[in-house]
């Protein structure tokens, strides 16, 4: 059982016009086995929250805390956070030419476990996860994300989540740009990992559609750098019907 606790998190970025505050006091607690959906309009700071937890150097934490099972996450380097059990499926996964998917996966698994996986079971695990995500085995020999379609990149992110077995996974718009079939495949992947490893999930999304496949335990409405409202799955239905206007005019 793991818990990620975010308390009064303030984050800013440097822009040509000066320092800009994007997160303005975020409070959020995620336990193993729970799915928290974060929904909010464009530019509200959802990706900033995801990147800040993962440790992207572009974002400066000005105040607040993030802990995982009591450990100070903000003190950790990016790779230490991954080793501690935090995983970020990125909104725009990065291409890494010259590095094959299979080499990348094995290197990451070795880094996170602190030892190389047993070759025989590893190869089998990779194969079956790829098959479950309907990824052609040929992807293993391609360079990381190079020339992948949008949907292929997202499947590759979920493949990593399945193989690296994090404690807390942040999925940043993993559903955006997917057709219905791909959405179902990716959602099934997330559910499978959750059943298997009891991972806690922070599901950032724009659309309620994915919530038909992955049932959230909590829904948070994210507006202007903070959580404006939270509730159960019924909140998502209301957002679907009414949109974010209510929160925006208030803000």
């Amino acid at each position, binding site marked *: 059982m793991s818990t990620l606790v975010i308390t009064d998190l303030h984050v800013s970025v440097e822009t040509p016009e000066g320092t800009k505050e994007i997160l303005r006091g975020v409070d959020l607690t995620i336990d193993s086995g729970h799915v928290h959906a974060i929904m909010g309009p464009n530019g509200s700071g959802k990706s900033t929250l995801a990147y800040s937890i*993962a*440790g*992207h*150097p*572009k974002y400066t934490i000005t105040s607040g805390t993030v802990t995982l099972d009591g450990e100070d996450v903000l003190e950790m*380097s*990016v*790779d230490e*956070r*991954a*080793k501690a059990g935090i*995983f*970020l499926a*990125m909104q725009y*996964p*990065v*291409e*890494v*030419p*010259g*590095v*094959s998917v299979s*080499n*990348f996966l094995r*290197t*990451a698994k070795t*880094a*996170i476990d602190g030892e190389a996986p047993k070759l025989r079971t590893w190869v089998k695990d990779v194969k079956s996860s790829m098959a479950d995500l309907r990824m052609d085995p040929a992807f293993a020999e391609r*360079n*990381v994300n190079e020339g992948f379609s949008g949907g292929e990149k997202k499947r590759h992110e979920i493949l*990593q989540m399945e193989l*690296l077995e994090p404690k807390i996974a942040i999925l940043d718009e993993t559903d955006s740009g997917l057709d219905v079939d791909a959405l179902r495949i990716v959602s099934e992947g997330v559910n499978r990992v959750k059943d298997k490893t009891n991972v806690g999930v922070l599901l950032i999304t724009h659309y309620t559609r994915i919530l038909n496949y992955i049932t959230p335990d909590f829904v948070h409405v994210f507006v202007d750098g903070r959580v404006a409202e939270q509730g159960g799955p019924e909140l998502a239905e209301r957002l679907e019907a009414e949109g974010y206007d209510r929160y925006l005019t208030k803000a």
Partner: protein
Amino acid sequence: MTTTDLTTDHSRATADEAHSHGLASTPPNASRADRPKSFELDVFPVPSGREEQWRFSAVRDLAPLFVDQPVDGSLAWSIDALPAGVRLTEVSVADARERSVSEPGDRASAIAAAHSGGARALTVAPGSVIDKPITITMHGDGSEARGHLLVEVGANAEVSVVIERTGSATYSEFISVDVGQNAGLNLVLLQTWEDDAVHSGEVHAKLSRDARLRGSVVTLGGKVVRLNTTASLAGEGSSVDLFGLYFADSGQHQEHQLFVDHMVPNCRSRVTYKGALAGASARTVWIGDVLIRKEAEGTDTYELNRNLVLTDGARADSVPNLEIETGLIDGAGHASATGRFDEEQMFYLRSRGISESEARKLVVRGFFADLIQEIGVPEVEKGLMNAIELELDMVEADDE
């Protein structure tokens, strides 16, 4: 890897996209073939750095190599017992001029020939097929040295020659490579100098009918290394593959110039050079000139240069030139691109638990892997990836 503006205009225009030319861009002044060649020093004034062929060079560091004076030092050679069919002999300055396939093409190599005290000739008898690579280690003790080397491979012979430079020196050389009819030579030049070596070398290879040359250059060490390689495809049906691998870190200036001269019909050439740069003030230059003369119908040529910039401050220049004087060719193309291993790629790998230094290694290994396999001498290939990773470790130690 993102393509950056580190390349020259020309290469940026061709970034990553291989393409073919109808009529090519020529070097600003004239055809590459018109440059003077001579054993006479007066033909070559002391370079100022403004000349076309020196404009990217570390002219100030190379200056001692432009001085017309004898030097007392030399490189110490080690070489295993030679197999039957191979001889190493001393050749007088006059005879060496006679036996070179070309006259020197710049001041540094003309001075190297003039003050070498005579050449050494590695001669492979016609028809000899030598299985084991011949390895020559040339070691510098920090002094000034000049060298003139002849590699002569007789008709129908097959041989691999590995020349490794170690230690330190201020060294210039002229290497003449004569590949006889239907002969095959695999020549590997390893620059694993210590940090303060300064090295200027000209290699001129001439290929006779149906000859095959595989030439690999690996430059890891030295403060300044400038290698100027020419392959003259002078016999019909000849074929050349030129590979280069370089890794520059802070304070290193590595320049590789190439000239592939298609003189006769139905020859083939491939040039593949890849370089990685890490550390502020790391500097590399690649200039690849290919000339397809009017007579050279049926030519098939392709040249490629890729650079991978691993840290800020490093600079890679890449200048491909293709001159085509006949339309009756099989294929002619080039590609040149400089990519940067950027913050986003680093973040992506690290967010998967991979440490910063392991992330760099992963990317650099991937970048060089296929090239290393092309060298074709297992003894060299084996050690190379380790040597590159040691370079990377040194970069990281510098960062701390």
